[in-house]
């Protein structure tokens, strides 16, 4: 066991600047999937339609679609300085990103609307599904933002 701990002495061999992309990916993954597990939990606890209208799931689905759209294009493609143009070109990439962000903001606003219009105003006895929808969409939205802007595309630093 004498040589075992020497290979663990690693605190000075980790360059945290280099790990920024990894940390951003991990944080985005935690946020995104925690959002989905919150709604799974709400759907399991409240299966009746009066407590949790099943159409409210559409909000999270659109938010996930927006996440995929936003992260499908790289910042370099939008700025126009990437090596390959992609199949849409620079203008197409900008429109794609625009629609993606619109869907992301729209689903976030819709989740707040669901919480307040569907649960708070109607003074329902069970409010947890509304809160769960809101937190699901908030987490997916922020997960998307962290994944998009938390990573750097500078290959040489």
């Amino acid at each position, binding site marked *: 066991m004498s040589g075992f701990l020497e290979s663990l002495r690693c605190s000075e061999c980790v360059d945290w600047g280099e790990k920024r992309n990894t940390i*951003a990916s991990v944080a985005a993954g935690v946020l995104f999937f925690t959002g989905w597990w919150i709604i799974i939990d709400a759907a399991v606890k409240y299966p009746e339609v009066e407590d949790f209208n099943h159409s409210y799931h559409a909000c999270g689905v659109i938010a996930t679609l927006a996440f995929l759209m936003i992260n499908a294009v790289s910042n370099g493609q939008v700025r126009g300085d990437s090596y390959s143009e992609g199949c849409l070109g620079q203008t197409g990439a900008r429109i794609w990103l625009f629609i993606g962000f619109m869907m992301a903001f729209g689903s976030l606003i819709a989740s707040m609307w669901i919480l307040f219009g569907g649960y708070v105003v109607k003074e329902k006895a069970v409010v947890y599904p509304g809160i769960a929808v809101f937190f699901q969409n908030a987490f997916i939205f922020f997960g998307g933002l962290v994944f998009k802007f938390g990573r750097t595309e*500078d290959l040489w630093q």
Partner: protein
Amino acid sequence: MAGIKALISLSFGGAVGLMFLMLGCALPQYNQYWPLFVLFFYILSPIPYCIARRLVDDTDATSNACKELAIFLTTGIVVSAFGLPIVFARAELIYWGACALVLTGNTVIFATILGFFLVFGSNDDFSWQQW
């Protein structure tokens, strides 16, 4: 080879983690085998990163979108392995004590898998013959 000692420690960690999982299922006061579904997540968790390492092996670039996607998916699998026992306990399929045991087992197993990648993963001359 990074060492037999590391390999033995990692296998001990894996055994302890699986022991916690089985305790959470098989203790007579719990006696519910639903938590065994997390085994699915244990097996799935190394796959995205291994696929990304095989597909893109440019060691020059420090940023690599494929590896980052793999890390994102791996994090999702780990979060799901923690979320599933909690949802089971909230749905009262299993007791909270069993849930706590399964979560402990999860932590140990994922620490073992991470340790496996840290100790045996960073090969400078990553050649195809190793697989």
